[in-house]
């Protein structure tokens, strides 16, 4: 059978052999190509075509006229960037982003170090299953639970009331909102985030610890000089990836709680785009905000990656 003759093909990708002609290769790979086709089409249609849809940034887009007939306005829509509403959204976004970088980002590292130091494998596995769980809870459920525990008629105000203290409602307090959002995020995903750090910790060569121990390094010095340097590459990788989405601070989470604290405290770029574009029909200006946000994310991720390379780290892709 001709199939038998194909067995020794597929050399390692690095070795370039003078292969058969294109036509023969298409024929050889036809089943595989057919398998790839639906997925490929999906990415083209749902990730690349919408990029083209961003032309409406330069249009006074009218849904009933469509892309073709809506009037062009050049950079007219960009005047949105001078509006106070936009500034409010931008400032809130940055506020949330900074809090998340400062509090949410390090949380999994600390938790992973704690988990890693559990000696009993059974207890360790149990705690791991517990802390991964909230990752699978949707935002609607999570916020409902939050409402039940710390909202106006919830557990915390009741307890405070019983103690004769003022019944604070943390769910409707605009000043507390950034902290609330960050704490919810930590509850949901700090545990999940430990997975990758735990793997990095496992990969640290135990000989380094031995050597350090022999040199007389105590527990804390070993942590400082062996453990932490061991997880630096992973940390940098995640930091770079985080930077790319830094302007997308918890969209669903914030949207769901926006009513409770008001737009002044809770409007971020994503909710701005949603309310002004989808709900109010200001398609062009909202799309302009969305586009600029996307471009900044891309620039941040590429820039941070370049910086990582400069310092001799691998970043998200090597080269």
């Amino acid at each position: 059978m001709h199939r038998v003759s194909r067995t020794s093909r597929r050399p390692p990708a690095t070795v370039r052999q003078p292969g058969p002609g294109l036509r023969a290769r298409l024929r050889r790979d036809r089943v595989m190509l057919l398998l790839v086709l639906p997925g490929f089409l999906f990415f083209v249609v749902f990730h690349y075509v919408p990029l083209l849809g961003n032309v409406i940034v330069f249009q006074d887009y009218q849904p009933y006229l469509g892309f073709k007939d809506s009037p062009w306005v050049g950079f007219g829509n960009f005047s949105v960037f001078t509006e106070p509403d936009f500034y409010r959204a931008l400032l809130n976004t940055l506020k949330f982003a900074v809090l998340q970088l400062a509090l949410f980002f390090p949380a999994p590292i600390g938790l992973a170090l704690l988990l890693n130091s559990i000696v009993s494998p059974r207890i360790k596995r149990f705690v791991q299953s517990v802390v991964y769980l909230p990752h699978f809870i949707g935002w609607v459920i999570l916020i409902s639970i939050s409402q039940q525990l710390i909202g106006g008629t919830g557990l915390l105000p009741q307890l405070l009331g019983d103690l004769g203290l003022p019944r604070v409602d943390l769910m409707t307090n605009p000043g507390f909102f950034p902290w609330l959002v960050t704490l919810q995020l930590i509850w949901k995903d700090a545990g999940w985030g430990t997975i990758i750090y735990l793997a990095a910790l496992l990969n640290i060569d135990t000989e380094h610890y031995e050597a350090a121990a022999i040199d007389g390094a105590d527990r804390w010095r070993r942590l400082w000089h062996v453990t932490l340097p061991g997880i630096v590459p992973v940390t940098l990788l995640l930091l770079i990836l985080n930077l790319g989405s830094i302007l997308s601070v918890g969209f669903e989470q914030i949207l769901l709680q926006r009513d409770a604290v008001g737009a002044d405290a809770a409007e971020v770029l994503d909710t701005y785009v949603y309310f002004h574009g989808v709900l109010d029909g200001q398609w062009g200006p909202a799309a302009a905000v969305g586009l600029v946000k996307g471009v900044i994310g891309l620039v941040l991720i590429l820039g941070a990656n370049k910086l990582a390379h400069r310092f001799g780290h691998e970043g998200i892709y090597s080269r």
Partner: protein
Amino acid sequence: MKTARPPWMEAPSRAGLAIKSVVIAVVCLLVLYPFVNIIATSLAGESEITRRGGIIAFFPSEPTLAAYRTIFAGGVVSHALLVSAAITIIGTALNLVVTIALAYGLSRPIVGGRFVLTTVLLTMLFGAGIIPNFLLVKALGMYDSYTSLIVPGLVSAFNFLVLRNFFQNIPAELLDSARIDGAGDLAILLRIVLPLSKAVLAVVALFYAVGHWNAFFNALLYLSDTGKWPLPLVLRLYVLQGQPVGGGTESPGEAVASIQAVQMAVVVVALVPILCVYPFLQRYFTKGVLTGAIKG
């Protein structure tokens, strides 16, 4: 008996151990207690909730299923539950088929494979934004249709990477020997690759399924017909926006469910499937997540 420890892992001091135990216990409690509280509240009767001012800390003294009867009598929650279940099952099945095909196709060097791979991976770096996606879904005629909850998220690049990396790590000799026995690409996928990948497939299926089950924003964006709403939107309406759950008429004498219990019952209903599947899949997470984290 004490196990011998290497010098760099000496036994912690007593005080250190105590502090660590307390911290770990607090972490576990912070995660688990909310679940206990909402389940307890959902089972409490009206009188008890009123009497205790809403605090049902661990277990109601007279547990009742009144809240659950109310939400299932109304029909809205049951209907949303059905919608969510159907979307989750059909959506996950389609996700898996397309993702497996793409990952398998790109797991070996094929003509144009690099190009397709780059096309897919680049999408992890940028997104077009809410507005263009919304307009696309509308232009494709999927607005107000359940397809809008399934098709725009057909493949996740991350899950694709997880599968592709796993497929690539299957020893080539195995596939080659199957080929010598006359198996084609498809037969190899179905009879060798997939059976070997059950664990990682389970994890990817869970990721997709949880995504569908929790789908909130797409549903909010694309479904204007409230009759089509899945569970997360109903949850928001009843619990976060405090709308009364339209229940059937209560027969007199039966325990009346309090609003708070009913709300928590809806939350519990939304949680149960996740809590049921989770323990069985939990042990595969690390493997699944890490195969995806290795650079493609």
